[in-house]
């Protein structure tokens, strides 16, 4: 079975990314559900790179012309969703920061009152 250079480069990169996902699960930086999500994404990508005809099959089922188009559409959707999730995560962090700053302000006020 002969592989094109791009298939080899992409596969190596995706294998590297999968190994990072496993390592992050092992050191506890990644929750199990996130591990399943990211590992599935990379494994599916490896399958798509090694067997591109499968993406064409999936594209035909969805009514999209070429396999490459289906992959690009799916990637864009995924990226949009992830950016949205990241924004929400940042907003939640900002909200937690505000709570902390507020608690400190009220605590300082109580301390000043006690000192008086």
């Amino acid at each position: 079975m002969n592989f094109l250079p791009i298939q080899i480069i992409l596969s190596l990169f995706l294998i590297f990314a999968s190994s990072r996902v496993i390592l992050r699960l092992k050191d506890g930086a990644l929750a199990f559900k996130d591990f399943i999500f990211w590992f599935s994404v990379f494994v599916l990508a490896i399958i798509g790179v090694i067997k591109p005809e499968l993406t064409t099959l999936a594209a035909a089922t969805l009514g999209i012309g070429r396999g490459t188009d289906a992959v690009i559409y799916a990637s864009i959707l995924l990226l949009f969703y992830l950016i949205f999730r990241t924004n929400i995560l940042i907003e939640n962090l900002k909200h937690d920061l505000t709570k902390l700053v507020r608690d400190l302000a009220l605590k300082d006020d109580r301390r000043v009152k006690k000192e008086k």
Partner: protein
Amino acid sequence: MKKLVLILPALNEAQVIGKVLKKIKKKVKALPVKTEVIVVNDGSSDKTAQIVKQQQIKVLTHKINRGLGASLGTGLAYAKLIKADFAITMDSDGQHDPKDIIKVLTPILEKKADVVIGSRMLYSSNLMPIIRKFFNFISNLITLILFRIRTTDSLSGFRGFSKKAIQKIQIKTDRMEVSNELFLQIKKHQLKYSEAPIKVIYTDYSIQKGQKPSNAFAIVFKLLLRLFR
């Protein structure tokens, strides 16, 4: 006697806050409630906090800047903590007239409303610049679409809250989008809503300090994020 907390969020207002507080202190003496004025100093880098302290007024200081929503949240959290019966928020740049405090307070005192917005649009000689009128209209429309509440001035910073509203409202947005989020809270907690006409004093300083129309899109985006969070 019932307690009112008058909340003034402030960010780098050293230039005007002394004068504003003097005017407010004079007016609150005539109110039919015991009033405590507090300034929420939102991480100011100038002498705002010192000037406020010199006037024997309480300052709650945010160690870092967290925005208007965060400051209002801190003010309301304080009101909740001291079991205040009413809370009123006003801008600290001098654009609100302390004479209007009673207008915002009256519907709450009479138990006709839990939240009162001081509307600049209901004031007979409204001098709001046209660009602000336009963005206010867009914001009112968004409030109507998202929360099904009709308002004439969703961006007003002059607001009154009853004890019930103080206890129930939990502000989650940190910045300017708080103006719209308050309507979400009104709807969520089924609070009685009313408006009172207020005068706005536009000066070069208050116009420069006020909300920039270009922020409108960021406000809508953040509000949507908040809704989907």
